[in-house]
């Protein structure tokens, strides 16, 4: 019994990370109805730059985290300016293809500037004394990650639901052609959306780096695709869906890992995706278009 509860807990911690990543995709898709395929690379680049430019220079962790967020946000804005805007909002496939191009640019740049494909490690891995709570073992780093992820998820949701800008974002998702007629600056909303989304990816990257202790210049594609899979499982454009799916996947993976499924572990998000889509063609909380 305790073993099951422990696995559940581990899954929750892993899932919080996933949820944060999926949230960054969902924000873009939910508001702009556009798919960005560069977020995995943004995630990678934000973590890499933060480790090289801040952590390795002896900066405290808080600075490293802020650098990751700022780099993520900047690359998010660049996605909008370089990939989305030249194509236009009405062409979802061309826009997604353009972001593949941008992903290639980011990844190639990271590899060239790094000079090698080896991972960059944290200056000193966090002391992670396991916390013993009754029968449960917890790592403080993971609790920290969970706390930040929870705050950011609730905050993002509240921002989109309550604030004026959030309202404008939802309006844009609803009817992109109407907004300019109401005098709402569409360009500013798309930039803001991608900045927030990129910042979330940067933050997720920093948190993952804390957990894993390193970032690899080649990590972008895989993690990016898992983020996409989670968004799809949750239902495109649904923020609560992304969170449910992220945490759900974390728990499923934790149980699979405790049973031991070998190399099938890496296929779990995809198997889950296929199963969910067969039962619910619009994901867990998605709405039919």
């Amino acid at each position, binding site marked *: 019994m305790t073993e099951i509860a422990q696995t559940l807990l581990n899954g929750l911690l892993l899932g919080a990370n996933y949820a944060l990543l999926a949230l960054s995709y969902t924000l873009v898709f939910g508001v702009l109805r556009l798919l960005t395929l560069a977020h995995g690379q943004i995630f990678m680049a934000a973590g890499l730059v933060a480790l090289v430019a801040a952590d390795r220079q002896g900066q405290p962790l808080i600075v490293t985290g802020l650098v990751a967020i700022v780099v993520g946000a900047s690359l998010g804005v660049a996605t909008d300016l*370089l990939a989305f805007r030249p194509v236009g909002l009405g062409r979802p496939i061309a826009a997604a293809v353009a972001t*593949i191009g941008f992903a*290639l*640019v980011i990844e190639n740049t990271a590899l060239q500037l790094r000079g090698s494909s080896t991972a960059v490690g944290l200056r000193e891995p966090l002391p992670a004394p396991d916390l013993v709570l009754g029968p449960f073992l917890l790592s403080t780093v993971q609790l920290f990650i969970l706390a930040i992820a929870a705050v950011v998820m609730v905050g993002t949701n509240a921002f989109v639901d309550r604030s004026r800008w959030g309202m404008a974002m939802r309006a844009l998702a609803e009817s992109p052609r109407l907004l300019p007629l109401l005098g709402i600056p569409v360009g500013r909303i798309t930039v803001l959306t991608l900045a927030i989304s990129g910042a979330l990816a940067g933050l997720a990257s920093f948190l993952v780096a804390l957990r894993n202790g390193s970032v690899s210049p080649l990590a972008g594609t895989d993690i990016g695709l898992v983020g996409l899979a989670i968004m799809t499982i949750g239902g495109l454009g649904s923020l609560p869906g992304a969170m449910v799916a992220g945490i759900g996947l974390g728990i499923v993976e934790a149980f699979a890992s405790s049973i031991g499924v070998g190399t099938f572990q890496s296929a779990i998000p*995809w198997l889950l995706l296929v199963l969910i889509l067969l039962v619910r*063609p619009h994901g867990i909380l998605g709405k039919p278009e």
Partner: protein
Amino acid sequence: MIDVFQNDAFRFFLLFNMLVALGMYVVYSTGQLSLGQAGFAAVGAYAGSYVDVKLGWPLVPVLLAAAAAAALVAIPVAFGANRVRGLYLLMGTLAVTEVVRVSLSNLDAVGGIQGIHGMEPSGVLEMAVVLALAIVGVAWLMSSPLGLEMRAIFDDEDAAAAAGVSTRTVKIIAVVAGAALTGIAGALFARYLSFIRPDLFGIGLSFSIALYVLIGGVHSLAGPLVGAFLITYLLEVLNRMQQFGLPPVLDFASPWRFAIYGGLVMAVMAVRPEGLLTRGAVRSLQAPLRRRLRRLRTSAHAAAIPARRWTAGEGSALEVVGVGHRFGGLVALEDVAFTIRPAEIVALLGANGAGKTTLINVVAGRLPLQRGSLRLARTSLGRLPAHRRTRLGVSRTFQSVRVFGHLTVGENVRLGLRAARDRARLPLEWLIELAGAPPEALARDLTLVGQRRVEIARAVASSPLVLLLDEPSAGMNERERGELAQLIRALRDLGIAVVLVDHNVDLALGIADRIVVLDFGLVIAEGVPDAIRRDERVRAAYLGTMGRSA
């Protein structure tokens, strides 16, 4: 200066990429953007290598086995793909690639992560022969009626169903055929390398294959081939930059080749979002046949319609009995009943929200029949899907024009003709006249009214027993409306039962034999136009707008 074409491996992969692009083209022609192609290539490569190494089969049976295995795996994928659309399809098929790769890594019968070794080698020549055959085959497919249906689905799936296309079947065929072709490519790839491993068929390959088609353009056979050729060639040239004896300044290009490629992808999408070769571009390379748009001259041509009739002279063409429809809690149709005979024009009138379009959607099968019954001549329409109803003789146009933009006017009409089945067919020339535009013009290049005419011509082309026209006169000027009225009368005289929904009350009262007035999902009045003009309830429902036309 060196010639990249002298490199055997380059030549092989150039042809390989063109072949897989062709496989993707077949799938994506129906609008299904599949990222499962690497998975299908893997299945073909493994099946081919297995029968080669373990059973010693020769080349042709190996390729057939590869095609069959890939097609077999594609069948459940195709059925699954039919349930989802857009990004869900993209992610679902991407999952297929990943699941296939991991499954193969864990399958000891095919060597696990070590893969299979020691296949009989085959090279560029075999690849070239297969590619040539594939090009001929795909060109034939895409110009066949099936290819026409595939391209129609790309443009508008609902409208394709309304034009009588069994969208489900066609989409499944496309996925399976594309997978078979990709499987063959995989087997040739395995033979060229003489070994095969699961990690050669990752998600990256699926994305590359998709890019060939998306960059090249999906609206012509040349698009995917050109896309695959240019991308492969570009990356190879960039890779070997130093060997060209160019100024050293340019040496940066090799290490930065993927960034350069990425930048070009972004630039191409910004300038040509539909890919390098659009259908328009391909056609403008051909002899331009821009004839002046011909005027619609229905009155002159009505006489030219063959006297052969396909419609029954007796009984009712369509019976609507007690039909109700709800959207959640909103009652769109309460209890609607009316009958229309052959050779009769019935106009449905009613204010916005009265349920007119909902009724058309229920009759055409776009919305399910929730309550009541529908009979076409003597057939119950019950739960038949939209395309079956069109084939039985219920044709429609949409309130917001829905033509197949990337198809020519002639192709739009031909698609309609296919739904006529065993009913007498109207002559193609007459239908083209009806469409009012040169047959070789792309439908999306026409004005809105021009597109509406094409849509009407497509609906009429199926020789319907019942024709449902939803706002056909929207956007038309006085003269065009007059011509439309003449056309509708001509169609009635052919024996077609016409159900007309139009905001232009003058038009409706002018040409209808009978009027059915809907208000909040109920029939509040029914009768000849003169009686309807005088009806108090109708006046009340319309708040006096009817008075003007009296």
